[in-house]
């Protein structure tokens, strides 16, 4: 079991290291994520949502639906813990 785990870990690590070669360097201001979608969030946040904190404006407005899903995840966890651990009064 342990050898198998070690093998799987080394394989995954090898795959990850293989992928690093073509990645943009750390803090590269010209990497694709910095150029493609995110500039609009940064430049238009005041104009479109009147919210200086871009994380909040993306979280709650541009990608607000993800946040609904995320709140639902935590709601699920809460109800799940109650379902698993509480026993109703007989």
């Amino acid at each position: 079991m342990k050898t198998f785990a070690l093998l799987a870990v080394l394989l995954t690590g090898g795959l990850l290291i293989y992928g690093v070669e073509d990645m943009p360097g750390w803090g590269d201001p010209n990497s694709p994520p910095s150029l493609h979608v995110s500039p609009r969030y940064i430049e238009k946040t005041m104009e479109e949502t009147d919210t200086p904190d871009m994380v909040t404006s993306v979280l709650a407005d541009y990608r607000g639906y993800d946040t609904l899903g995320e709140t639902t995840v935590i709601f699920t966890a809460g109800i799940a813990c109650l379902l698993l651990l509480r026993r109703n009064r007989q």
Partner: protein
Amino acid sequence: MIIEYENVIIKTVCRLLIPFIQLFSIYVIMHGHYSPGGGFQGGVILGASFILLVIAYGLEESRRRISLKALTIYACLGLFLYSGIGALCLLMGANYLDYGRLPLPISSIATIRAMGILGIEIGVGMAVMAIMISIFLAIASYETGGEDG
């Protein structure tokens, strides 16, 4: 099982700290537009203040003050606030979560959007606070064979 620990220092410090923690959590929720923060962070801080209360005063005492059923209802209401704002946008003829059409007496669409964001942050804060406490209570009171109160 978390039992009440007779120690004046812990109780007094908690009693002094908890209101400030709660005030800070509300600040974090409301100030999410201008600084790092928002519904999740504020909700978690608010939940942590109640958890501190439970740790200091023991499960038995806090069971009398905090009801799991009420917490579930808070969580549902918070989520209803969130999804209800979205549904209100639907009723106003826009797409889901398109806050721009919310019926608020403000002329600028961007400001209406900011108000919509505030609304959902409050909903998220309520839900996260309630859920955090109920996860903690469910796990902490399992050994005693917790029953619904």
